[in-house]
């Protein structure tokens, strides 16, 4: 086994440690993702979602995109899942298994999931095919901010306005008077 690893690591294009870690992260993400949809407790599903999203952040770190990884933690784990949990606990937070959790809608969800996977896999393979991304060093924050505020300024502003509209819309919907 050692000789195999040594032989592989002599090939400069493959970093063994990274591949091993990617394997570990990918397997735990897959397991967590399957648990999210198979567990019959809503709170457990949200907690497994935390594991899956943390795996995404870890993968971003492996790719050297530290800013995106930290944003993943701040936005998805620190805000989105917290709001899920908050909402679930505020309404119905039964301990133990709840068999009524979307039992009859599972086949529909499976179809949507497979379709989405197909589209995304096709888009990725079609875009990159055999291209190899060269990552020498972690991406600097300044690179991210420079590209957001120069090259991608229009999409950035459009998203900002969209979010503002959603915010105001939420307030209008929630107001009683």
């Amino acid at each position, binding site marked *: 086994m050692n000789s195999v690893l040594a032989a592989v690591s002599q090939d400069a294009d493959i970093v063994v440690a990274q591949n091993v870690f990617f394997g570990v992260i990918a397997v735990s993400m897959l397991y967590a993702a399957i648990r999210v949809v198979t567990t019959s407790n809503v*709170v*457990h599903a949200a*907690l497994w979602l*935390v594991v899956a999203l943390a795996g995404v952040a870890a993968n971003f770190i492996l790719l050297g995109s*530290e*800013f995106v990884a*930290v*944003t993943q*933690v*701040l936005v998805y*784990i*620190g*805000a989105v*899942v*917290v*709001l899920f*949990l*908050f909402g679930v*606990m*505020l309404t119905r*937070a039964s*301990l*133990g298994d709840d068999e009524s959790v979307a039992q009859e809608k599972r086949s529909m969800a499976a179809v949507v999931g497979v379709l989405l996977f197909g589209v995304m896999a096709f888009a990725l393979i079609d875009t990159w095919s055999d291209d190899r991304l060269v990552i020498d060093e*972690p991406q*600097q*924050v*300044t690179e991210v901010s420079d590209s957001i505020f120069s090259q991608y300024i229009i999409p950035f502003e459009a998203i900002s306005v969209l979010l503002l509209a959603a915010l105001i819309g939420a307030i209008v919907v929630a107001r009683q008077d």
Partner: protein
Amino acid sequence: MNLLAELSYWQQTSIRVGAGLLAVILVAGTLVMLHLFKLVSFMQSRLGPMEAGPFGSLQLLAEVGKHLQKEDIVPRKADKIVFAAAPFVVLASTFLLVVVLPGGPDAWFIQNDLGIYLALAVSSVSVIGILMAGWGSANKYSLLGGLRATGQLIAYELPLILAVVGVVIQAGTMNLQGIVYQQANGEIFGWDGIGNPYILTQFVAFFLFLTAMQAELTQTPFDMPIAESELVSGYMTEYSGMRFLLFFIAEFATAGVFSAIAAVLFLGGWYVPGIDPDDNIMNVLGPLVMFVKVIGLTFVVFWVRFSFPRFREDQLQKLAWKFLIPLALLNIVVTAIFKVWI
């Protein structure tokens, strides 16, 4: 040049983990002893613990021993795994916060451009631990406490982050080490005697940060989540022994770490006026300076904690959404205008 640069990766990592553990335990211990035991006692005209050791200085060891001996009780209907894991999630978030803190020109755990952004992201994970504790305990009081805590932490995370944005705009970097250097090399109207601590220009942000910090730490007057006269002990109600101790350590260590972040952002961090910030002596003096500033800032936290009555839940939310957040946004606008024009 980092002092650790000649060691291999695993040696560096174990030294960092060890130093991080030490920082968390030492700071939490000092705060409990100095502020929670002695400061509050003196404020109430009593002596506090006096029996264990000279002036009660070994009281902390006695307390830890007491908690370790206690029975580990898990409610029968509790969700065992979630209940057991919750304190570790909260404590892990605190430990990860420590790594961003700089203690001197070469005395740091990790240093990257993310700095304060990483700290704020990691600190937001502790909410999940609190929700897990509140829900997993199978107790109405715990669940109510967990929900109150979450509502409060979400509300006060915004002014906290927005207050930091003002400092980041002025410093031009999110790297905490960079922010310290910006303050050390700055000058006040041409006078560079004490550098330019950002408390002078960002005093609004400093006020916002300290207020939001008090709420993030769920210290009185923002202790609605653990209001002992209404909710027994909030999300911690069902915890005993070792697990209660973990929550307790996390609470005080987080107070220390947030104060350290405030010290870096507003008080110049480890910089001492009169000494060249790149001098080697700063690697020894720096952590001590940080420690003194942390004790000073936590003194304010505990002073407020023991002086003010508790906010009502609706007042608490109103303060965050209708006063602190607009003020923070205003601060960002004003800072940006000054940054561009001056």
